[in-house]
């Protein structure tokens, strides 16, 4: 029964989703959105599991002092402090004791992490308790900032936006920019005229790249532009379409196998 029930559920919902596509009626839409809502709800609960997994892996790293374990603190501090920053906002003209609050929060996290790995748990728990009292004390008595759970005010918190704009965005942009270097090195290794086909690839690559070259003798730019357009629109597009058709059929076939319970690899029954 424990093994059959999941397959039964997959069959019922899979079959419903297939049929639903052809039924525009309101009741079919209702069930559809209801199921989509549930997917979202399950996703949010799974996110909690994910964060727990990240926490465990990081704490484990700190515990065993694995290579670069200090960065695990950065991960955990980043994770929890950004959440708190996103929920708090300035009420008056100054931030009051907010910075003390953030430091107490970090201390609290630090003590809590150590409490879960150290041998003398009592000491760390005691320290984290002290930090918690300071935290709550500031939160209760300091009126210069507030907590917003249901409104978006916290997202306009300058500390939150500054971290997002001046730390996260540049880092992500840098990661993306690495692509340029990797494309250069990959192109250097890949485009070798090893045989006829590879030579064709090399020549077409150079034609497409030269299209952007402004220093070309008279008459050549039009020829290169036309050639590269042809390469893009005819051989390239034809091959892409063939792959897309294959993928489309593959998706239908695999979905069918999943719905009919033939393909069970995703449940660890491969």
């Amino acid at each position, binding site marked *: 029964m424990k093994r059959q029930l999941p397959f039964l559920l997959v069959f019922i919902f899979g079959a419903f989703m297939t049929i639903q*596509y*052809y*039924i*525009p*009626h*309101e009741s079919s*839409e209702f069930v559809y959105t209801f199921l989509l809502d549930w*997917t979202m709800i*399950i*996703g949010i609960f*799974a*996110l909690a*599991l*994910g*964060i727990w*997994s*990240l926490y*465990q*892996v990081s704490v*484990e790293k700190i515990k065993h002092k694995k*290579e*670069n374990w200090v960065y695990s603190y950065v991960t955990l501090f980043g994770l929890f402090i950004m959440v708190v920053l996103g929920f708090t906002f300035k009420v008056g003209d100054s931030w009051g004791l907010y910075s003390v609050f953030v430091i107490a929060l970090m201390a609290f996290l630090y003590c809590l992490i150590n409490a879960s790995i150290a041998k003398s748990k009592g000491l760390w728990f005691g320290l984290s308790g002290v930090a918690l009292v300071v935290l709550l004390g500031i939160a209760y008595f300091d009126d210069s900032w507030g907590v917003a759970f*249901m*409104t978006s*005010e916290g997202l306009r918190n300058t500390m939150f936006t500054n971290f997002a704009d001046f730390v996260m965005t540049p*880092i*992500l942009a840098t*990661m*993306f920019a*690495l*692509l340029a270097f*990797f*494309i250069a*090195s*990959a192109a250097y*290794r*890949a485009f070798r005229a090893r045989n006829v086909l590879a030579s064709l690839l090399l020549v077409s690559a150079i034609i497409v790249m030269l299209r952007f070259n402004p220093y070309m003798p008279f008459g050549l730019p039009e020829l290169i532009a036309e050639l590269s357009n042809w390469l893009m629109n005819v051989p390239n597009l034809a091959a892409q379409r063939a*792959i*897309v*058709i*294959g*993928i489309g*059929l*593959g*998706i*239908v*076939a*695999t*979905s*069918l*196998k*999943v719905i009919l319970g*033939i*393909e069970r*690899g*995703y*449940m*660890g*029954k*491969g």
Partner: protein
Amino acid sequence: MKVKLLFAVILLLLLSSLSFAQDDSAEIDTSAVVEELVLPAPPGNLSGVDKPNDHGHSIDLSWELSPDDGGGLNTVLQYDIYHWVPNLMLELNLVRDSISVIQKIIRKTTNGIIEGSQADSMKKVFEKLSRSELFDVRNSLTEYVKKGNKGLAEACKSYPEGGAWLFLDKKPSGTSTFDHIGSKEFKSSGFVPDFANLYYRVDAVTADGAKASSNILGPIQSSGQWYNTFRTPVVFSVLLFTLLTVFFVQKARKGADLYVRPLGGIEAVDDAIGRATEMGRPILYVLGLGSAADIATIASFTILGRVAKKVAEYQTELLVPTYDPIVMTVAQEVVKSAYLDAGRPDAYKEDTVHFVTQSQFAYVAAVNGIMLRELPATNIYMGKFFAESLILAETGALAGSIQISGTDEIAQIPFFIVACDYTLIGEELYAASAYLGKEPVLLGSLKAQDYAKAAIIVLAVIGVILAQFDFGTEFVNLFEVVN
């Protein structure tokens, strides 16, 4: 008790302002006032049908252009479309407006409320309430609207008494159709009840504001359909393909010999695991950025199961950093049962499969870090990949790992081919599970795919030939699917 009293007072206030609103609203028909102007010829023959293949709540209107459209002295500038609504609807709309004002106060935004407007005066009343009272009033008003909407169909029967013509939309001259797409949400002021008598009218309007009305269309009713005829070609192809699959699966069950060409990438997996064991280094398995609903990810789970089983047998370390928490949960289950199947449940560690982040490039940074610190002997990338594919694969190559990849994202395939030792292209990724299991039932579906592909090739050739004889469009229309 207090809240109920408050609710009653608010409702009374609202309803009493209804008459005021009717006089005040510019949207209510005022055609009677402009009698002295020279009238244009009215648009003729207004007709309408329930919008086909939809969820209801919509009517498609069409009319004949006014003879003064595009010529004559009183050139028609635009067409105003009106529909008749019972007083109940106007009343409910007021209540809806107040719900949206309350909603805004709860969310602490007052965007869109103009000073001195009706919404502004509502805001002034509601602002005095406490938070819990606001919630209660909102719920009671919502309940009121819900009940009121049930009576709409009944109220529509009273036409033409007890209602008013309400301005719906305007269309520029030269237009002779309008789709009145109403909302199905009873909370929305654009709500149109199904199976209720609806009435429409179209006015031709000139530059000086003179209006001439068409005939009145109605009663007409909207309703939802149970089958979308626009999607019939899809039904046929899905049925055909399902039949093909079932046929070949049955045939395979009876023992027919089905050949599958070898997939280099999959054959290499076993060698790669052996190599990792010899070197005493881990194996990195990346499931990509897809969700658990993506077919590429589902196919990847099957391959992961196979890899995990081998890893358990050889007692090598496996690392699976994940991008999506649901994918993580499923992958944990897959790896756990693989270890169980291999007879080594004790060797399974909880953090083999772990979550990293749901930010694309932060995930890349984390995985690249693992590659450079742990120096895995083998990196396997199977699933959905986007701009990060080359950054992952090049870093892996830099770390000296053997790399096997597979994705159905066309734009990323070239990157993988360049930087990896083996690449599964598109559908090969899906075929991998059938290939791994060598089970006849799984192979059957591959055969069905081949026949479907053959059919597509034949149809494409027919299309090319017909296009030479100018029948191309008719042929293409056979396969048209309207969304």
